[in-house]
């Protein structure tokens, strides 16, 4: 099973990204299963939010929060802390949206891409970076999830941002 923890702030769309990844993974193949859920509670703008995606080739029946992740994706670098490494598998990686370097994490300036596509949030950029780095889903399936689960009027810009983020990693 592949497990991804998403960290963001209320309003940044961390859970949307978690959900899109689950939808992309299970899109067409009936032998693939996913769960996606947020850290539960009242929704408050700006408050730290966690979200989880679990991907497997058999039904995912463990609904508890991920204790050891393959990837931790952080949408806001003020939420990074070195202790997060305890939540990683041995070969797990942390991906952070940040303009500065962070020791032990892969950093990308996600806002540069989101600004280019006039998006107020970096969630689909970080989704694209994860897709490029991990290959857990194809870029095509990731785009399909945006088409299936995001409002039509923001699909194009988000697909653009996702595609650019995937390129960023693969180039």
């Amino acid at each position, binding site marked *: 099973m592949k497990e991804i923890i998403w960290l963001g702030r209320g309003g940044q769309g961390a859970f949307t990204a978690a959900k899109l990844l689950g939808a992309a993974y299970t899109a067409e193949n009936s032998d693939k299963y996913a769960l996606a859920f947020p850290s539960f509670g009242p929704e408050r703008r700006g408050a730290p939010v966690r979200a989880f995606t679990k991907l497997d080739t058999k039904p*995912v029946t463990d609904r508890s929060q991920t204790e050891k992740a393959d990837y931790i994706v952080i949408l806001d670098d003020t939420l990074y802390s070195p202790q997060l490494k305890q939540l990683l598998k041995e070969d797990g990686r942390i991906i952070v949206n940040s303009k500065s370097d962070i020791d032990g994490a892969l950093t990308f300036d996600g806002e540069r891409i989101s600004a280019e596509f006039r998006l107020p949030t970096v969630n689909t950029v970080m989704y694209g970076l994860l897709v490029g780095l991990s290959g857990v889903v194809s870029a095509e399936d990731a785009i399909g999830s945006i088409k299936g689960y995001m409002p039509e009027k923001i699909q194009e810009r988000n697909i653009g941002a996702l595609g650019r983020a995937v390129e960023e990693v693969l180039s």
Partner: protein
Amino acid sequence: MSRKFLSGNEAFAEGIRLARPEVISAYPITPQTIVVERLSEMVEDGSLRAEYVHVESEHSALSCAIGASAAGARAFTATSSQGLLYMAECLYYAAGGRFPIVMMNADRSTALPWNIYGDQRDSLSQLDSGWIQAYAENAQEALDLALMSYKIAENKAVSTPYMANLDGFVLTHTYETVDIPDREQADRFLPPYETDNRIDFDNPKNMAFSAGPDSNYIFKYREHEGVLAAKAVIAETEKEFAEIFGRQYTGLTESYLTEDADYILITLGSIAGLCRETADKLRSRGVKAGVLRIRYMRPFPNEEIAHELKNAKGYGVLEKDISFGNEGAVYTNVNSALKKAGLTIKGGNFIGGLGGRNISAADIEGIFAHIADGKDGVHFLGIGGSDNG
């Protein structure tokens, strides 16, 4: 059939859309809100033709559903926690009036301390209200229960309201892949509601009347018979469901590796998956562990539980409930089933997940260790051990 990535609430709403209720009375409460939001969108976009009634409280939500059902309409409402408790008076009216209303309850903790997270103290406090009570484990089962619920509740021999329970957040707000049946298949499975138990100007009758000491007990006996009749109707309905949709459910319980199990953990709702994974892990170490998931608390699976446990050395009941001063309601019911069957197996009660507290794989391994030690009594997970809260 179409596949979608949906939350438990959304999946349940899809099932209700296919069931074509004619009246929906709605009052939102976390974590139920999304199911009534989705239904209102479906009514708005015309994909569900129903009277959508915004009411001012849960008491009114169920009163409205009772009125609709008394007019011969298929009625739906949904609630959670304090909302369920606030409508408690009406639960008994609906059951006593033999109105086959379907209600989704998002299982949530009860105040005080105030808490919006999942446990099962709300619905389990209403076991005596006369409703059928089902507990879903995942979003697919939630959707399928929504569709099956009306067929079971409206069966003439049953004619009893039906409460479908979804664990708050862990099920209501978790997204997973769900197969949504075709409209045509759903219509073939579930015909429109027809009943004589309704207001009819051509055939006037007295409804929702009072009955004194000389006859009251007869109505109560009939109510009891109605819920018991659901046992056979649930089995028939699941068979028909499997024929049309290809998914076979297993009646009042679902067993996992219980056949040769020494130690059986009995539980209900969405935690069952982690229990089964833990049983697998223990099996790989040579411990004969099994899991019995209760799908229906009413009618209660007395015979099924006794049958599954008859060769076990020990059992445990894991539930998100406590009846203060005694034990969890599920444990009480399970022990009664064993006593009636003449079984004397040791078993303990494990209270966990109250107020949404996480139940971990380690917790469940600990429960199996307790069971193997032959311990009985009531144990609160996280209290009294090394992990003290």
